[in-house]
């Protein structure tokens, strides 16, 4: 009996050790992204962080790559977006852009997935907020290492000349 217990303990040891090691690596100081809820353990109640201010300056943001869905530079609080109503379309759909002077939703949004043109917005593009998001003044939690493709391609272009 004693041997069995010892044996099972001995076999469990590597697993435990590996678990501890991984836990240290993942949760270890400086190795993990800061958690959204802060450094406190989740068992402790902490006050919610203040709401971030929304960006409402209506200035278009540069896209980081050509296919990036444009960001929303205005507040969308209280705008309906459900099966019954889509407030975004009241300004951004083709027929309302003249009075609203808002950018029209992309031409791809009037195509089905086979590229056929539809007269109306494609149903698969109805949920605007799946891809387009409003911005806040929140500071990034981690450093952004994104590199623009133009910078990546720059050495090649220089070489070609």
């Amino acid at each position, binding site marked *: 009996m004693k041997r069995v217990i010892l044996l099972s303990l001995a076999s469990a040891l590597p697993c435990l050790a590996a678990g501890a090691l991984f836990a240290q690596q993942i949760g270890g100081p400086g190795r993990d992204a800061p958690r959204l809820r802060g450094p406190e353990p989740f068992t402790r109640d902490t006050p919610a962080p203040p709401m971030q201010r929304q960006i*409402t*300056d*209506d200035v278009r943001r540069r896209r980081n790559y050509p296919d990036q869905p444009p960001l929303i530079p*205005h507040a969308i*609080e*209280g705008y*309906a977006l*459900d*099966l*019954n*109503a*889509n*407030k975004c*379309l*009241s300004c951004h*759909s083709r*027929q*309302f852009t003249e*009075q*609203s*002077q808002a950018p029209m939703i992309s031409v791809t949004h009037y195509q089905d997935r086979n590229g056929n043109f539809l007269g*109306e*917005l494609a149903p698969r593009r109805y949920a605007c907020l799946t891809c387009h998001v409003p911005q806040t003044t929140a500071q990034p939690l981690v450093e952004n290492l994104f590199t623009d493709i133009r910078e990546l391609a720059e050495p090649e272009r220089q070489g070609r000349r």
Partner: protein
Amino acid sequence: MATLVARLSQSRLGGWVRQAFSPARTLSLAFLTLGGFVAGVIFWGGFNTVLEATNTERFCVSCHEMETNVFEELKGTIHFTNRSGVRATCPDCHVPHEWTNKIARKMQASKEVWGHIFGSIDTREKFLALRRHLAEREWERMKANDSLECRNCHSAESMDLTKQNPRAARAHEQFLFTGQRTCIDCHKGIAHKLPNMSGVPGWE
């Protein structure tokens, strides 16, 4: 005809009518005029008190149709809680503030009492099925009175366009100040969820 009048005057009702229209014999003129005045004050005061009591958020929400549907939806909006702590309660938007129109609206509301008694929207499903109809009634009412209930608080004269974001300022300048549109034309669904908006002008 004459026999009918004669028979009526002999009946008990006829007796009461005759007594009511003949001069009082035992009551003094002072008693009758002052008594009438006091009774009038009590009646009018009571009438207005009841009228005001039915014009409160608490009264509206005492019906579960209002409490579980529209009031729940109002709670998340800026007209319920906001940074300056002003709240627009149900009657602020749904009952005209001016007396004559208020009485007219109150009389229309007897239909709502009927609906409550017979349970026309006593489940969520029934409410959702009727929501477009109910919303359209309110849109029509506000369109007809030029969004008067909005303008009781938000007046175009006291709007500072420089404090609005450029998008809103341009829209107000173009559509509100020129009188082309009224508040409700663009600001639908600001206090409650919207019904199916297909076919509503300005919506896809």
